[in-house]
């Protein structure tokens, strides 16, 4: 236990050059949820994201260079594991996720303690979320594939608005996908026989900054995530469990 930990729950906010919105996001989480510590993972920002987050009262992890969204969020999982938080929620730094909706995720987990991950979904009921058609198509393709693979309806596989319990935290602290990680994370949850559920939430349009997924890159990411999905299917056990070889090992010869 360390001095920095004040409560049993942690809100992780990955942020890359989000100076425009980070202060308001941290403040609104702290206001809506006094039972959550707020950790901002500054993913190598070149603007004042860290300073503003600290000023707003968040704990701040400053990554020495940009790791990408997966690496930043995994730093949050590792922090949560190390400091023994009971629950962790991920909230985006652009103001897209509404802090008062954390309650919706928490209630679902309270209602069923066997759940390891609760995802906020924009598409269970029509919340009128304004996403460009190309983006929607990508999301729906992943939703279709994942739903069939995991045998459970997954409507919003790219949503980062998720609540995890200690088992979820432990799994993803060990291994979390690199970029566009949310889709693969659903598959990992399934492979490890953890339980997840989606609950309907509202999301706002981005408050500022740029989405990490621009239209030019989205085709590349789609192909990469599809590759990861299909290769992931061929993995007997997609991540190392305790007692297995280390995830990054020297190997023989090379």
């Amino acid at each position, binding site marked *: 236990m360390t001095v920095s930990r004040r409560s049993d729950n942690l809100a992780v906010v990955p942020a890359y050059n989000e100076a425009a919105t980070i202060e308001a996001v941290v403040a609104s989480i702290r206001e809506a949820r006094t039972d959550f510590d707020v950790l901002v993972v500054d993913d190598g920002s070149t603007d004042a994201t860290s300073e503003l987050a600290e000023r707003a009262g968040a704990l701040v992890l400053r990554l*020495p*260079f940009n790791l990408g969204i997966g690496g930043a969020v995994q730093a949050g999982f590792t922090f949560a594991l190390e400091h023994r938080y009971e629950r962790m929620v991920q909230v985006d730094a652009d103001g897209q996720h509404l802090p008062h909706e954390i309650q919706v995720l928490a209630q679902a987990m309270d209602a069923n303690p066997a759940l390891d991950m609760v995802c906020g979904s924009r598409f269970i009921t029509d919340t009128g979320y304004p996403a460009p058609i190309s983006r929607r198509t990508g999301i729906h393709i992943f939703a279709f594939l994942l739903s069939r693979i995991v045998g459970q309806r997954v409507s919003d596989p790219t949503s980062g608005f998720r609540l995890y319990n200690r088992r979820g935290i432990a799994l993803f602290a060990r291994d979390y996908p*690199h*970029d566009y990680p949310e889709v693969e994370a659903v598959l990992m949850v399934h492979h490890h026989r953890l339980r997840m559920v989606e609950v309907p939430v509202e999301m706002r349009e981005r408050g500022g900054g740029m989405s990490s997924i621009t239209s030019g890159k989205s085709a590349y990411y789609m192909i990469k995530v599809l*590759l*990861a999905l299909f*290769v992931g299917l*061929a993995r007997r056990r997609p991540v190392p469990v305790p007692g297995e070889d280390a*995830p990054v090992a020297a*190997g023989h010869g090379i």
Partner: protein
Amino acid sequence: MDVRLRVVALAAILALFLVVLDLVRRRKLLERYALLWLFSALALIGLAAWGGLLSGVATAIGVVAPANALFVVAIGFILVLLLHFSIAVSRLTDQAKILAQRLALLEQRQRRLEDEGEEEEADRDYVSDRVSD
């Protein structure tokens, strides 16, 4: 292109393709580095399997023997892959440098904090010695 050569080329590229996939499966190769390999392999498989396409490419780049066109294209992919790795190595070098610098700063800070802690302890001992005297 000679049928035997075509079969050998196809088999070799297919083996490469499968090895890359298996490396990704065993988590020895990240998707981001596998994609270029897979794309190159797919393009070469297409060229080796579809003779018309290969002849077309050969004519277009002014190579007499289609088999040589396959080598030219393969060398082209190898060059792109090498450049890709040089870029990746440069990035890793930069990151390693930054990590080393941050680690040095962190160690220095840790030592300073430890020294300060020891000094405080020494001060406290000194005071309590004097009080007990």
